[in-house]
């Protein structure tokens, strides 16, 4: 089993506040790894240190055996990053966005191919400001993949999206994983983590307090004698919404 990402005893403080207090984990090649936790748990800071956006106080991160703090530019060349809220400069066509991202990695690509990958081919010559929230997320994802990265980071990618757009995005993220790219994702949504992630780390107060597959985590909880106080319904309101508006996954383009 090869580990594409290795994080060892990672620490970061802002003044007196210890945001990340000794985090260690690894990510396997071709898995979707989720980092969960309440606001302020240190998820984003951890992610930013892995992405070479923040200086590492102590500990180390290696991606594909390259040390992040020693070779930040080499690491940036093999990772793709999807920020929390993707912004694009206006008055720019979708094809130009793709060209610019590719150029930032020193690559020349066929933009149409990457737009087709996320069903934005028919919008190729539109300006980015004409896209909906979900379309922007999809553009952002395909833009992060123009250089065929080995690891793909997503920071709360589905925040603010409607249920259909969320499910579309999940499917897209799974397709990315199926191409052999390791995916690291942070989220607030448990359903998202349960459906999407192969393994999950739960963070609180700058530390990892649990790390396993979603199934095992649930098993462990039940083994501790946990019982849900409420009877589980066969369907919930979200299922109703999807049923009425979604018309199945993948076809809806919002």
């Amino acid at each position: 089993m090869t580990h594409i990402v290795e994080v060892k005893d990672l620490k970061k403080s802002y003044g007196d506040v210890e945001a990340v207090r000794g985090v260690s984990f690894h990510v396997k090649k071709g898995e979707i790894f989720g980092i969960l936790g309440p606001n302020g748990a240190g998820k984003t800071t951890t992610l930013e240190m892995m992405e070479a956006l923040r200086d590492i106080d102590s500990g180390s991160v290696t991606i594909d055996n390259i040390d992040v703090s020693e070779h930040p530019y080499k690491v940036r060349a093999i990772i793709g990053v999807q920020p929390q809220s993707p912004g694009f400069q206006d008055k720019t066509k979708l094809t130009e966005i793709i060209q610019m991202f590719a150029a930032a990695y020193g690559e020349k690509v066929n933009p149409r191919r990457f737009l087709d990958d996320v069903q934005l081919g028919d919008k190729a010559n539109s300006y980015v400001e004409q896209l909906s929230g979900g379309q922007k997320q999809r553009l952002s994802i395909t833009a992060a993949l123009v250089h065929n990265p080995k690891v793909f980071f997503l920071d709360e990618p589905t925040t603010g999206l409607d249920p259909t757009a969320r499910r579309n995005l999940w499917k897209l993220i799974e397709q990315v994983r199926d191409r052999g790219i390791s995916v690291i994702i942070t989220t607030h949504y448990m359903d998202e983590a349960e459906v999407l992630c192969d393994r999950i780390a739960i963070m609180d107060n700058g530390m990892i307090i649990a790390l396993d597959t979603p199934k095992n985590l649930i098993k462990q909880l039940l083994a501790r004698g946990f019982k849900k106080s409420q009877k589980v319904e066969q369907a919930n309101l979200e299922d109703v919404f999807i049923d009425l508006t979604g018309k199945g996954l993948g076809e809806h383009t919002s």
Partner: protein
Amino acid sequence: MRKKLYTVTTFVKINTKRFFRDKTAIFFSILFPLIFLFIFGGIFGNTSNLSFRVAYINQSQTESANQVGAILKSNKLFKIDPDISDIDAANEKMNRGQLDATIVIPRDFGEVNETLPSGKVEVIYTQNNQQAGQALGSILQEVMRGVNARYVETEMPFTVVATQSNNKSLSSFDYTFAGLLGFSIIGMGIFGPINVFPELKKMGILRRLHTTPIRVWQYFMSTVISQLVVGTVTMVVLFSVAIAVFNLKVVGNIFELALFLALGITSILGIGLALGGWAKNERQAAPLSNIIVFPMMFLSGTFFPRFLMPEWLQTASNYLPLTPVIDGIRLITTEGKHLTEIGPQIGLIGLWLLIVYAIAFRVFRWE
């Protein structure tokens, strides 16, 4: 290296296209200076010659009166108000400061007593216009001497001869135009980046770029080049209008002028990159840029020539980054100097260029 430059050229191409899609950006970079050109060109365009605004009232019917009138009307020193025919109207306009003086030819002017016609031309002026009135009196005296010579032969022992030199002096417009280009360069080079960068940071666009292997120098270089493209278009428009409408004569070599302008724009843009690159948001960008930009704008001679300032201020403002740019533009454009002759200006711009870019690289923040 070729890959790194490919990054730069792609950014240049797309960002330049983007600029020309953005009507606000076009307005502020090209149209705004053009409006200023028309305003300042209109004010300073044709005031280089002295003249008096006068009312001319002829109450006499004689031949001599008509002669004097013809001489006054043909003299460019007098701008005769065509609407005024009586003293009251003339007084009213003089009191409002719209006329410098009134020239009255009295009823008895030119009547023959004894052998020759004679008479007195009256010049009326208000208390606030003493200088103009007295100057007018002297000029009219001279006019009368010409008229007198037809009747009486006189020999003057001492006379004055005025000779025009062959040198063309700088007109107000020449100063204004160079200053205006300075204003336009500030608009592009400083106000551009300090508006755009905080916006890009707010939207997380620069932060996102930072997750790619792009280097600050690549980003700066692409910004400088696309700004130079925009600058070229702006300068061509401004020069064309100045030449076509305001009779600007470009004496210097156009190629040298273009090179010099490129150097000037690059160095001033460095200030914008430092300010905009440092500021996290508009609230940080605005005060600092106002402190730096406005004094520089006024002290470097954008809106009025520096020779009007007190000496110590002239000396101090000599070393501001924009001053050598504006001076250099004027020296090449209107005085026909070559790049080799404006070494001090080029040296100073080069020095500032090194300083501001050193600062810009140091303080740049991606978010």
